[in-house]
């Protein structure tokens, strides 16, 4: 019997959802976790959220609602509303990045499966055990953890770990969007500001700005290491494409879908075209995150050329 796996991604609003081909994915996380003002954020628009859940489930996928990573008190009533709408619409799980929200979910919707998100800062087996008592059924560990540490937690706690396998990982979130300082100078207003192509660069270092936070400049890429992840017992994988185009979501998703099918079937070999597709979407290049106990921007693999970007924009600085 072929082992199953889940490949999922995040989509913030209905426009992006409808513009995206979801065929590579088994599940979609709905909503934007960093900013209430993100354009038509599904967490702020109940009707859109209802429709989005129907769209996802109508395609035979699992629909998860995400939640804010750093909610202030005045976020909570809207969040409660979003949860109620999502539960009524048949959501399959909620993703929680904030422990106060976890408490709310646990008390208000005790039967709702909870996925702990990466910004909830699960670093240890003890931390994971605590959250398991509050209803967690899956955990995305903090991005700083190595595969070795993740495996230890999984074995100790007995919960599946969801792994970011491709895409820009969060490096931090903020309560302040400094992009607003440029509205007048650039003639671009919120909510369009954070959706621009925005990078922060310092020598060889680069980060992507998303307004109320920063993402890694390089895309985490575990493409070469999927057989290892499968062998270590992992079966929940995320493509982080919240700040990417529908083309990225589709093309990267397709590569990973096929590569994972091979990996779980115990088949070796990757198509050269897959590799080219991944590199073509990596503005800054690729990294492995912290999975191998190194700094997040390093890349380990047989493809050292992965570190450099294959993308060159006419007239732009080579970032």
């Amino acid at each position, binding site marked *: 019997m072929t082992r199953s796996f889940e490949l999922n991604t995040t989509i913030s609003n209905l426009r992006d959802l409808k513009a995206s081909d979801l065929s590579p994915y088994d599940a979609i996380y709905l909503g934007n976790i960093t900013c209430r003002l993100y354009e038509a954020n599904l967490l702020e628009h109940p009707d859109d959220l209802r429709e989005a859940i129907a769209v996802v489930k109508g395609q035979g996928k699992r629909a998860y609602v995400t939640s804010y*990573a*750093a*909610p*202030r*008190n005045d*976020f*909570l009533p809207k969040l409660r509303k979003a949860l109620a709408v999502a539960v009524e619409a048949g959501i399959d799980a909620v993703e929680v990045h*904030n*422990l*106060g*929200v*976890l*408490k709310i979910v646990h008390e208000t919707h005790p039967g709702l499966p909870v996925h702990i998100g990466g*910004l909830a*800062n699960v*670093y*240890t*087996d*003890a*931390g*994971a*055990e*605590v*959250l398991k008592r509050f209803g967690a059924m899956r955990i995305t560990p*903090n*991005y*700083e953890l190595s595969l070795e*540490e993740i495996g*230890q937690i999984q074995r100790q706690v007995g919960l599946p770990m969801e792994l970011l396998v491709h895409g820009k990982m969060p*490096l*931090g*979130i903020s*309560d*302040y969007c*400094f992009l607003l300082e*440029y509205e007048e100078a*650039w003639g671009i207003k919120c909510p369009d500001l954070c959706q*621009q*192509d*925005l990078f*922060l*660069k*310092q020598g060889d*270092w680069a*980060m992507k*700005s998303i307004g109320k*936070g*920063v993402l*890694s400049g390089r895309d985490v890429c575990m493409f070469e290491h999927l057989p290892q992840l499968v062998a270590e017992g992992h079966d929940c994988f995320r493509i982080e494409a919240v700040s990417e185009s529908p083309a990225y979501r589709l093309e990267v998703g397709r590569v990973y879908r096929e590569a994972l099918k091979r990996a779980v079937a115990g088949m070796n070999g990757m198509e050269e075209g897959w590799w080219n597709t991944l590199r073509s979407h990596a503005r800054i290049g690729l990294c492995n995150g*912290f999975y191998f*106990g*190194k*700094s*997040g*921007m390093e890349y380990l693999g047989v493809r050292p050329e992965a570190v450099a970007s294959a993308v060159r*924009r006419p*007239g*732009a*600085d080579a*970032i």
Partner: protein
Amino acid sequence: MSLILHRADAPILLAPAGDPTAAVAALESGADAIYVGLKGWSRGGAKGELTSEELQEVLSVAHARSRRVRVALNTIPRRAERRYLLGRVAELIGWGIDGVIVNDPGLLAELRARYPALCITASIGCAAMNEADVAFYRDLGADAVVLPGTLSLDELRAIAQVPDVMTEVMIHMVEEFILLGKCWMPSYYRLNPTPLAEVHGEGNRLVGSMKRGGAGVCFKVCEQPWGLYLDGQQVTKRLLPSRQISPINDLSDVLDAGVDVVKLQGRSLSSTLLARLVGRYRASIDAWVDGKAAPAFEEFQLEPSWTVARR
């Protein structure tokens, strides 16, 4: 739930102390309690941590003045490190510490289970921002939860209503661009596992990681200028935003909101500057307690150097 730090009818002034001299300065300037880091086990830098001998010295000095000492153990220890640390806390309790400050829900829960009478604070690194967060940590066993000084009076007022837990506000702090507890920018660029001698076998300081690196790990990527690129073109060069928060002239409003503990950030501060800082807040709190007008301070807009050395 232990409430041993709660002084009836008066808010507690909790000051940082990075070394024994600073501890004396803070106490003599009017701190009701001080918090210190234990070398190898706290965030914030080698300059702000005490050795075991220094901690015992500081405990003696503080208790002679009937003041209290909390110990920051706010890195996130891994499994082997945690076993060691949990045992070490027994020794610290034997020396007479008045509480610990921790950064991880798992460690908090284990400490509560093992030491029912220990006063435990959920650190600012737990990133509590709302009343549900505070209630979560209370339910886990925290006696106090630290909140950022960036919260509004309305928020503080609402959170202070959460029963059976002390509201502690880091009223004097540097507000970084990234929320405290939610940053791993430095380790994305540099991560250097360094053996931790005390923990046999698996102990490693992950220098570079804010959460797990222990002493002196944040090399302040946010304080270095970054080029901002829009559509591939550099449009400006800038620092990531940060500002000093220290609303001393509005402290009476904060206290009216029901805050239990006024916490000052700054374990790397010199004893001279620390004494001035603590003295200001002492005077303001005492005026509030006595129902008098607070002294007006000219420099209410303080530079970040009032919080962290070298800024």
